[in-house]
């Protein structure tokens, strides 16, 4: 971990330990370049609502093993994702900017167990992972704004305590 922190002091622009980093080399403008992600997000949000993935009841069904729906959704998504990544690697498919697609190797740390268990508890309680939180708000469950703010607070507290937690 020491190494990572030294690296960031040299290169403060890239967030340390980010699971969704931006690896594009070509410069992007803050708004116009990012509008395509807004469009993709809209499509994604529609899928979330239409497949009822954002439903608190669907999450209860999943953890009670009363329905196959959520397992089917996640399982299919993983298989489709795996095949896509395999194809990108196999045929060395480039991005639309003609850049090589970058993959990162994840290193195990204790957060993968402790943090994941904590998230699992919250997932079952709120009926939402971070993505569906936004879609729940969009669907008119305004009170979920409080859940989202609390999730941002939780992320902030993690940042504050990070050095004291086992990794």
């Amino acid at each position, binding site marked *: 971990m020491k190494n990572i922190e030294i690296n960031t002091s040299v290169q403060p622009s890239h967030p340390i*330990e980010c699971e*969704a980093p931006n690896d594009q080399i070509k410069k992007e403008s803050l708004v116009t370049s990012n509008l395509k992600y807004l469009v993709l*997000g809209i499509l994604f949000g529609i899928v979330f609502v239409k497949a009822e993935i*954002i439903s608190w*009841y669907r999450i209860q069904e999943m953890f009670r093993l009363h329905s196959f729906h959520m397992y089917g*959704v996640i399982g299919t998504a993983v298989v489709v*994702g795996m095949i896509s990544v395999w194809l990108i690697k196999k045929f060395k498919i480039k991005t639309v900017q003609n850049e090589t697609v970058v993959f990162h190797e994840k290193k195990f740390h204790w957060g993968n167990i402790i943090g*994941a268990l904590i998230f699992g508890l919250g997932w*079952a309680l709120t009926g939402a992972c971070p993505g569906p939180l936004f879609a729940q708000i969009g669907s008119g469950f305004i009170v979920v704004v409080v859940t989202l703010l609390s999730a941002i607070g939780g992320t902030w507290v993690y940042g504050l305590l990070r050095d004291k937690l086992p990794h």
Partner: protein
Amino acid sequence: MVEFIQKPWPWYVAGTLIGLTVPALLLIGNKHFGISSSLRHICAACVPGNISFFKYDWRKEAWNLFFVAGILLGGVVATQLLSNPDPIVIAPETVKALEALNIQVDHNLMPSSIFNVENLLSLKGLVFFVVGGFLVGFGTRYAGGCTSGHAIMGLSTLQWPSLIATCCFMAGGFAMVHFVFPWIMSIIA
């Protein structure tokens, strides 16, 4: 066609579309699928404090914020324009289990007896919104990702730490529903 869109979409349609988000993000701009990062970027943009974890150029990662803003708008579009006119179908065993815990099962996506603004200042609101949200935000960041970053993106790229994390997500959820949740409901009901 309209009828097909209005009905709840089957798991294989949703799963395929969600899976395709992985190559879509990779190929339109070398971006990795992972939604919980957006929460961190909001911290970095609004309340970085003096915390090194939030000191980076969040503008470079702003695509993630546009993506989640899109998810919210997608929720609006799907609910306002494409919504299912029929009540949601819930597994009868789940209905029975929830009713045994004194949770009213209605026909919305979320039980309005819980996800209601009036509950905000009650014990129920504290548990479901404040505690629940905190566990999601703290847990995902400590785990280094959520269902998208670990379960979908991580497993798609065959990362074993993501497999461990995904198993622990599920273990936490099972523990909540079967052990903690009945206890919580006995207190707040």
